[in-house]
Every structure is written in structure tokens, then in C-alpha cells.
């Protein structure tokens, strides 16, 4: 519990404020807290592949700035309409059901914020070759 919440509860127990006032103040503090976490936007997408127990195998560390995604979308928005249609049809042929025209910069921001919760951990073991490795994909 943080100091501000403690003070409010102390004021309430000392009958300096009413229950409604305390509720309002606590609500304000909670809103501030949630704003802080929402502004905590991830900066990098990290992909890590490491051998599990033994030292054999490849180690891969990739750190991709998420700004690249936003900048890429800005550039993609400048692609002429005719090219957009061709890209869209090529994507549809590959089975990617994704409409580029409906993807705006606001969507990218929402996607990046949502990526904060992304965590992929894969433990793999290849018994034939005797390799075992872990794959981690996350944002920070």
C-alpha cells in the first residue's frame, strides 16, 4: 500500500473525511496509477533462443525496436492504392486474412501497448539429436 492511500485511510479513521470522500480520493489515486502503467509502452521485441542444459547449440538474441513497426506502418501508408490492392490480394492468396486498409496508426499504438503482455516461452527437446533449447519471445 502506498503512502497516499495510507494517509487517506488514516484521515477516514480519524473522521476527518467521510467514506464518500475517501472513496473519491482513492479512485483518483487508482486512475493515476493506471495512467502510469498505460504510458509504460514496450520499446523492444526480444527473441532469445538458448540451449537448455548442455552448451551445445546456437544462441540467438534479437532485439527489435518497436518503433520500427510504427515507422514501417507510416511508410506503408504511403504505398499507392494500386500497390496496396496487389499486396492485399497476395496476402489473401497466402491465407493471411488481414486488411491493410483498416490498419491505422492508432491500431499500431494499441497493438504495441497490447504487446506488453506478450510472452512466449517454448521448451523444446530433440531426443534424436540430443539438443534441447528454450525460445523466449517477449516485449520490454
Amino acid at each position: 500500500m502506498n503512502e497516499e492511500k495510507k494517509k487517506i485511510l488514516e484521515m477516514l479513521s480519524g473522521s476527518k473525511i467521510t467514506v464518500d470522500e475517501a472513496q473519491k480520493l482513492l479512485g483518483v489515486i487508482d486512475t493515476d496509477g493506471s495512467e502510469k502503467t498505460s504510458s509504460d509502452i514496450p520499446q523492444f521485441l526480444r527473441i532469445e533462443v538458448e540451449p537448455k542444459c548442455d552448451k551445445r547449440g546456437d544462441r540467438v538474441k534479437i532485439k527489435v525496436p518497436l518503433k520500427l513497426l510504427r515507422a514501417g506502418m507510416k511508410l506503408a501508408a504511403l504505398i499507392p492504392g494500386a500497390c496496396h490492392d496487389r499486396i492485399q490480394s497476395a496476402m489473401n492468396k497466402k491465407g493471411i486474412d488481414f486488411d491493410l486498409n483498416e490498419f491505422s496508426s492508432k491500431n499500431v499504438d494499441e497493438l504495441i501497448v497490447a504487446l506488453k503482455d506478450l510472452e512466449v516461452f517454448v521448451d523444446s527437446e530433440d531426443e534424436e539429436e540430443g539438443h534441447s533449447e528454450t525460445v523466449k519471445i517477449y516485449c520490454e
Partner: protein
Amino acid sequence: MIPMLIRIKIDSTEKRKNLWLPLFLLWPFIFLALLLCLPLILFFGIIMILVGKGMIFFRLWPALYDFICSFKGLLIDVKSEDSVVKISIT
């Protein structure tokens, strides 16, 4: 912020390379070249406006700048038993 340095490290049994590309030395020359080409770029821009693609042309430059800037912080580090490849943009 624009990337200032590209580091490419290749370390294997056959070859060993450690390249530091100081982009901060390169950018002034690129910006100077762009400044010198500015009349030509503007002329081309006017043609693009007449064709009806002016908006795309003038929005392309800041978008391109953003795209280059967004590479800052990229890191690719691959280590195998006998080789190391590391690319970092700072």
C-alpha cells in the same frame, strides 16, 4: 534520434571481422548532399503535385527519416559453436 553507429562483428574459424561504421560522420555528408539536391527535389515535388502525388512525395521524407531513426537499438546476436555474428545499431 538518428542512429550513430553500426557495429558488425563476425568471428569464425575462417575469418574475423569487427567493423565499426561511424554513421555520425556520414550523416553530415548525406544531409549536405540532400541540401545540394534540394532544388532538384523541389522541382520533382512540383511535378508530383501536378501529377496528383504531391502529398505522398512530401510525406515520404519524414516517414523515411522516422524509419531510419527507428533502427536505433536493433541488436542481432547469433552465437554457434564455432562462430559469432553480432550486428548492433546504436
